[in-house]
């Protein structure tokens, strides 16, 4: 059996970077990825089957069949869900994880994000806690990752709210007509705005070319390889070191422990999609970075005499506090086109409502949006009082696809310990491994913050020249999806 200094499960934003840092430091690393190394062509440009709009399937894993989860709805009824269904809370499963198909906004946390329990107090029923580290602890690493992976932005514009020592390595994306409209609106409101930091090469960087400004950032792979994920930055570096063995299509089943309860390695299924074979690898260090849901699942499935509730779960904390981002949003119609067809499309943001909003715990960022394919626009962005069919619908699409201004942004999710991942022993995946079961909702304070931010989005659109504005009030639900976090807290 092979022995490693570290075994890493998952090749996304967490695992990919850890693999690079350890391998370049001379450690022998086994890096496991459940999905495949997908080419640009394999990810494709299917408008109905991608990680942004997944009506009939998606393009970056996991396979639709054989990978169920259980979702418990607000009435307490369990449903078996497939990976492309909303209640599955999927994130991509392929080399690079979510970073293969993300939009690649590269926000830092702001200093107050690390001490929200101290700043606001803990709302009743919430598990809000301060981080055991501060912004200052993390700042040098933000800088390092921005420079090593490549982030385009304007540090000066953000400096007053999110302090930094060094600017971004790449200039921000160019403004478009939507940027100008929103910048004018923000000026009239007295709001501070900045370009949106993006992990996109606005100029050639790291021996890869610049962005060609296509319309397919979120949910798709980049045609010019100018979008920086782990698959084209840190993982190639890890492999080039000669110290990292990467195995794709390898499904991690269980963290193995010895008779004294200490971690000794991992068991996994190689060639998991075609001819699964159980393998074991040895290491005293096993790093689980498979996203908040699957990471919790592996820990909970790693039971033994010493760990009868799963690994690290003596206090019933693993899997709790599942959180993601509610995304308040609003739309408005401008008198003129605000669309120049130049991607990514997201270009201007305000972070001034991240904190210090009266009566609100936290707040959030607001920005314009990535270019939406017309069918996304049809599903997502039409006014609620517009008929869904007939000539009025068609003419709205024709007249307003280029005139609609979009503003949206994530709010800090206020954690609820009952929003959680458990394991359902009665439902198993294609390999017979018990699957993740998702239940509960985010905390009601999240809804209050989301409604506050929705109102700010409406303000911004009106100030920018939209006479007709529409948006839906946020609803209490479980949040997770592609921004999932929270199930394996530090310190527990």
């Amino acid at each position: 059996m092979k022995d490693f200094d570290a075994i890493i499960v998952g090749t996304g934003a967490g695992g990919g970077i850890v693999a690079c840092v350890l391998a370049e430091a001379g450690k022998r690393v086994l890096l496991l990825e459940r999905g495949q190394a997908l080419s640009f062509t394999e990810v494709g440009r299917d408008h109905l089957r991608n990680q942004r709009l997944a009506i009939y399937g998606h393009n970056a894993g996991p396979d639709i069949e054989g990978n169920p989860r259980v979702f418990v709805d607000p009435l307490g009824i369990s449903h078996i869900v497939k990976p492309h269904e909303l209640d599955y809370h999927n994130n991509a499963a392929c080399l690079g994880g979510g970073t293969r198909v993300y939009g690649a906004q590269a926000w830092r946390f702001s200093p107050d994000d690390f001490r929200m329990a101290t700043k606001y107090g803990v709302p009743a029923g919430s598990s809000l806690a301060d981080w055991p580290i501060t912004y200052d602890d993390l700042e040098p690493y933000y800088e390092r990752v921005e420079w090593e992976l490549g982030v385009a932005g304007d540090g000066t514009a953000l400096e007053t709210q999110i302090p930094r020592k060094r600017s971004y390595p790449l200039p921000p994306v160019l403004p478009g007509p939507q940027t100008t409209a929103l910048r004018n609106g923000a000026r009239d409101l007295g709001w501070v705005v900045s370009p949106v930091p993006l992990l996109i090469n606005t100029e050639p960087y790291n021996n890869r070319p610049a962005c060609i400004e296509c319309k397919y950032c979120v949910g798709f792979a980049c045609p010019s390889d100018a979008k920086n994920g782990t698959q084209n930055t840190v993982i190639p570096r890890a492999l080039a070191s000669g110290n990292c063995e990467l195995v794709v299509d390898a499904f991690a089943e269980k963290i193995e422990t010895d008779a004294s309860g200490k971690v000794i390695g991992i068991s996994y299924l190689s060639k998991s999609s075609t001819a699964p074979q159980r393998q074991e690898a040895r290491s005293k260090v096993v790093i689980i970075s498979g996203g908040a849901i699957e990471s919790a699942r592996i820990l909970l499935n790693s039971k033994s005499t010493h760990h009868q509730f799963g690994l690290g779960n003596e206090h019933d904390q693993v899997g709790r506090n599942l959180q993601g981002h509610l995304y308040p949003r609003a739309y408005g119609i401008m008198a003129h086109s605000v669309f120049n067809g130049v991607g990514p499309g997201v270009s201007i943001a305000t972070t001034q409502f991240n904190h210090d909003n009266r009566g609100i715990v936290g707040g959030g960022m607001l920005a314009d949006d990535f270019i939406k394919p017309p069918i996304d626009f049809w599903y997502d962005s039409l006014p609620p009082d517009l008929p869904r069919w007939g000539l009025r619908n068609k003419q709205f699409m024709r007249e307003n696809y280029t005139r609609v201004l979009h503003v949206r942004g994530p709010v800090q999710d206020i954690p609820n310990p009952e929003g959680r991942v458990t394991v359902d022993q009665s439902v198993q995946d294609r390999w017979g491994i018990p699957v993740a079961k998702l239940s509960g909702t985010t905390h009601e304070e999240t809804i209050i913050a989301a409604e506050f931010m929705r109102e700010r989005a409406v303000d911004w659109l009106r100030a920018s020249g939209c006479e007709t504005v529409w948006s839906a009030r946020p609803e209490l639900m479980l949040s997770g999806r592609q921004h999932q976090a929270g199930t394996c807290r530090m310190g527990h």
Partner: protein
Amino acid sequence: MTELQQQTLQAVLDRVIPPDDFPGAWEAGVGNYLARQFEGDLASRITFYLAGLDGIEAEAMAGLGKHFVSLGPNEQDSILQRVESGKVTTSWTISPEEFFKLMVETAAEGYYSNPEQGGNLGAISWAMTGFSKYGPV
């Protein structure tokens, strides 16, 4: 699909996305899109969908004594509005509202998604909306 169902389908789709100086749903290939989907992702819904088309035809015959396809646009629209809101006058074997939602959404998918799906022939809706008119391809 019978010839009558085919005619009803075409007539229904062309009220959902009617022709103006840009093609309607049928000319833009939404029928091709649906044919492909009913052999693939929507294979399990074909019986349901055909029951909906039969329901629309029955509404026309019961109310106006004519095939749906032979009615004028305003008469067709008022039948479709009834189906959309579930206020049908004949006895349906399926939920009219659920059928209508599926029918409208799949029509939009065929009209606005990428032409490789079988619809949106010549990427005509992308020219109409401006999606393909501006910026790099």
